């Protein structure tokens, strides 16, 4: 856990690890740049540590009541049109195509 008021520098190794989690391939120059910029942004954002939030409930959403809809059968999007928007698909068979996964 980070100590309050300590700017949390960002190392190249951390950038690489986060990029892997996010499925992003980064160039060496981007890794360098993001290490600096993300460090700057986090150092600024670290001011949130100054506020005592003991006993304060977190807010994930301001919605007080969600709107349910009737559970009725209705047409969905047209399968052909949806598949047509994909970079690679077997439209008649009803599949998206991806690179070979199994040997």
């Amino acid at each position: 856990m980070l100590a309050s008021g300590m700017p949390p520098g960002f190392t190249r190794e951390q950038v690489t690890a986060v990029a892997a989690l996010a499925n992003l391939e980064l160039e060496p120059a981007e890794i360098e740049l993001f290490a600096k910029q993300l460090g700057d942004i986090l150092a600024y954002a670290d001011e949130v540590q100054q506020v005592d939030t003991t006993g304060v409930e977190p807010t994930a959403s301001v919605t007080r009541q969600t709107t349910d809809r009737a559970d009725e059968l209705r047409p969905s999007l047209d399968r052909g049109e949806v598949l047509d928007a994909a970079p690679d698909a077997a439209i008649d068979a009803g599949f998206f195509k991806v690179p070979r996964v199994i040997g």
Partner: protein
Amino acid sequence: MTEGAWTVSEVSDAVRAGARSATDVCRDALARIDALNPQLNAFNTVVAEQALARAKAIDDDRGRWRDAPLAGVPVAIKDNLCTRGVRTTASSKILESYVPPYTATAVERLEAAGAVIVGKANCDEFAMGSSNETSAFGPVRNPWALDRIPGGTSGGSAAAVAATLAPLALGSDTGGSIRQPAALCGVVGLKPTYGRVSRYGLIAHASSLDQVGPLTRTVRDAAIVLGVIAGGDPCDATSASEPVPDYTTGLTGDIRTLRVGVPRALLDKGVHGDVAGALFAALDALKNRGAALIDIDLPHARYATAVYYLVSTAEASSNLARFDGVRYGFRARAEPRTPGADLRTMYARTRAEGFGSEVKRRIMLGTYVLSAGYYDAYYLKAQRLRTLILRDYEQAFTGADAVNVIAMPTSPTPAFRLGERTADPLQMYLADVFTVSANLAGLPAISVPCGFTADQLPIGMQLTGRRFDEATLLRVADAYERDTPWSRRTPAIATR
């Protein structure tokens, strides 16, 4: 270029009365776009043929549109709102050629009210930015000064309305993306209460903050359009079923019983002198109309920018995980290496080539603050602070000293120069200091033109209101507009 009638209410009145045909109005809009868009880059896509066909259909069946509130009104749709059959890019390479199979609810409602879509407005990539410079299709230029940014992320929407290319544009606002460009381009921009307008078909940035709203020349126009797009939607579980009033009936000019809160401590530093001067003059105008000015305190507002960038990037990193080169848009060619690794390589390379720098930066930040070991220190902490920010507003809006609206600048500075802040993302983020709170608290807020700097750059006043009380917000903004000439000014580029 023709002068005069070019507001939503003027155009729809003229079309309904038969004084102008929808086709004539549409041709006018397309001619304006032809003349000025090459300089402004406000549109990613213009749908001239479709728009003219639609206008003709309205003219051929005038009876059907006799009571339509937006009969024949040309509208620019921000390019992160899905339009069936019309390319929707979110100004990203990864969706460069994406043609959605469905239309956003807000857009459907505009069309059902008689609006004519003329094109898709440029914006920051996935609505991430404060200057419209992150667009994969190049920056939009500010119609008041072509070497300056129009604001972001709905920069194309704001520029299109300011330069009179269309009297109406739809935008989206996650942290100020309707209000800040409206302020910097000298037009009206309304972010409704979270849930007031359906988000169905809006390409998600941060789902707990995103809201769709109008950019117009006048407050009355914003009231008309909100009445059209507001209301519950079975396709968006967070949309609110509260009844939708006629927002125009409250535009009486009478604000004598209303109390306007002024958070003076927030205005002490970092606000451009001309912006502060214009805001204080605007507050005097409200006082002269009979409103009471009340000093208020929003003690946690100073943390709002930090909280916003922790919460919004966390949500964005999750929302943007769906762009993987499988279901829509662009796919990078991944060279086969080891069997089984191909798919992951394709994902990572597609995202590397498809996303721009700002989007990657936010995905990285969001992934980090959600990751094990940092979740509590950043994401959860930010959510707790979000509660405190919300409570500050609740306190200001309730009790014996309750205010009806809160006034502050929309942006601390006027439009900056293109390229001025692109190298320093943190400086860019600080442009949102006054706007992000309304999103975190889910409150409605409007930016209304309130003057010009010595360099003739537009300035906006932001008014924030109570949950689902857009009516009061619009009443105050409209009353202010009646006393001031700002909304009637047009940039020189549009009058030549």
